[in-house]
């Protein structure tokens, strides 16, 4: 069964490796110029001394040069890529067998179909975890200079570092496998899985993420109004990486930078749980479902 799973998914595996290679090449090229500028501007020393407040011109110049390339275009592309990977790999897993009638071949060998599915899911999920971890590692390395200025709590670093990127892929994969079983056609299943995945992904990010834990509050005194200071250092707290949730008069509520991993675990947990629910439903339905024709 391991060979069978490999043979059926090796095209996808090669595609994923190609994607990873392209990402790595882009990261090396971009990151090299970013790292050169970072050390050239002496930002590391400045950051260590003063959270960046001592060298506003250097920080601003660096951000102007790199933040648009790194943040906006990157975030909008990378927002959908984990979902695309998940649905492209997940939807055909069962749907293609039903579409082409090969389920009659696959499930009439001496392997019960629940086992057939379990082996496939285990191997493909494992592959996606490796892919997600590798993409996370590449992006984290690539963004490292930028992250020293912005911390890890901004959308464009939080979404691709730590655990959540892998969890997003798995969630889209789980939805797509289930959709493939229910819809029985690969392409409609991809769409049917991608749309709710994207909706949940955005809702979690923009509605729930700030409130995974109750924010801390601090009393502040802002003479010219409180907001972001230099780079992404919140003026209110003065610490790189703190995420300001709300400012109400002179009370600021914020998520401190050291909650990054807690938040990563919570958010990854949500998406992994959704993936597990979808795959659990798939296993149950495949075992239980009686008819595959029509």
């Amino acid at each position: 069964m391991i060979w069978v799973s490999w043979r059926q998914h090796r095209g996808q595996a090669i595609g994923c490796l190609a994607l990873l290679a392209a990402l790595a090449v882009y990261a090396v090229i971009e990151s090299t110029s970013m790292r050169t500028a970072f050390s050239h501007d002496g930002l590391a020393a400045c950051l260590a001394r003063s959270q960046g407040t001592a060298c506003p011109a250097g920080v601003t110049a660096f951000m102007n040069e790199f933040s648009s390339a790194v943040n906006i275009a990157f975030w909008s592309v990378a927002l959908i890529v984990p979902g695309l990977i998940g649905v492209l790999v997940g939807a055909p897993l069962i749907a293609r067998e039903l579409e082409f009638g090969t389920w009659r071949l696959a499930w009439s060998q001496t392997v019960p179909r629940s086992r057939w599915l379990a082996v496939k899911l285990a191997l493909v999920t494992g592959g996606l975890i490796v892919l997600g971890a590798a993409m996370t590692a590449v992006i984290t390395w690539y963004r490292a200079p930028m992250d020293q200025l912005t911390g890890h709590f901004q959308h464009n670093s939080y979404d691709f570092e730590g655990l959540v990127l892998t969890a997003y892929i798995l969630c889209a994969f789980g939805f797509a496998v289930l959709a493939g079983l229910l819809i029985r056609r690969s392409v409609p299943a991809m769409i049917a899985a991608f749309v709710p995945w994207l909706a949940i992904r955005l809702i979690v990010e923009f509605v729930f993420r700030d409130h995974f834990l109750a924010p801390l509050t601090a009393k502040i005194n802002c003479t010219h109004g409180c907001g972001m200071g230099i780079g992404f250092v919140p003026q209110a707290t003065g610490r790189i990486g703190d995420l300001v949730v709300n400012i109400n008069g002179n009370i600021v509520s914020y998520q401190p930078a050291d909650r990054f991993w807690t938040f990563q675990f919570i958010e990854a947990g949500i998406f992994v749980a959704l993936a597990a629910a979808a795959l659990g439903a798939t296993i149950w339905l495949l075992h239980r479902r009686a008819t595959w024709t029509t």
Partner: protein
Amino acid sequence: MTQHDADASVPALRTDRLGRRYGKVWGLRDCTLEVPAGAVAALVGPNGAGKTTLLEMIIGLLEPTEGQVSVFGETSRADTAEALARVGYVAQDHPLYRDFTVADMFHLGRAMNPSWDQELAEARVDTLGIPLQRKVKRLSGGQQAQVSLTMALAKRAPLLVLDEPVSSLDPVARLEFMRDVMASAADATLTFLISSHVVSELERFCDWLIVLSHGHVQLAGSADDLLDAHRLLTVPRATPDAELPGTAIHRADSDRHSTVLVRAGADQLAAQGHAGWQADPVSFEQLVMAYLQRQAPATDNDPPPAAARPGPSTKAVTR
């Protein structure tokens, strides 16, 4: 597999009041039949008669709603390795993975079947001139059918189920395919169950016959016995069924004569024969058509009327 031959009284296949409901509609109901070990059985019926439903339950792909299947005396539970191991299956349109090579398909067979016979598989495609390294999508329809059959044979299951194996093939490929099936069937350890909606395809090859329509078994038994037990009578048009020997199965009236296919033994024919009546042997196809044209049960949900019950067939199979 050899232990099965030892006890010839154990049928290769037995279904006992087997039924499968899809929502409110019964795809197959009350299906009781037997196929003896070593037989080449034809399962004949129009499209939608429940053939595929029956075959999928026999293979273990589909769980019966009621009743049970046993293969060589062992009850099959759907979707278990034990049940799946006992039956080789060539599905309709012989699905294969299009981007696999023939060698890949055999690798899959080896990976998924503990009793896989790689030598048999390779020898067979070699004889047929199918290159192992060719991709499935580059094979002709006939070659794809042959690869499917080879995979089912190499699984080394004692019962082989072929669902409409030749319906998508051209006439030459049909003949070649069926000849290969017969060559394999000469190995008496194998039992074949072959479905088709075209009777003439199977006539020359099968020694056991099952006629299925409207989700019920209409007729089942040894082909020779069934042909012996039926006659085509040509009688004057006015003759009522009651005066005919045996049971009238199907009647066609022309201007002056009626042609009636009756189920009657030689003794009945002799006892009730009249001068001017003509009794001819029936062909496989006439027999099947007569039973298929019989009054069907009113709805699929009702038990079949007594006339259509597989009474004669039960006699035939328990003989």
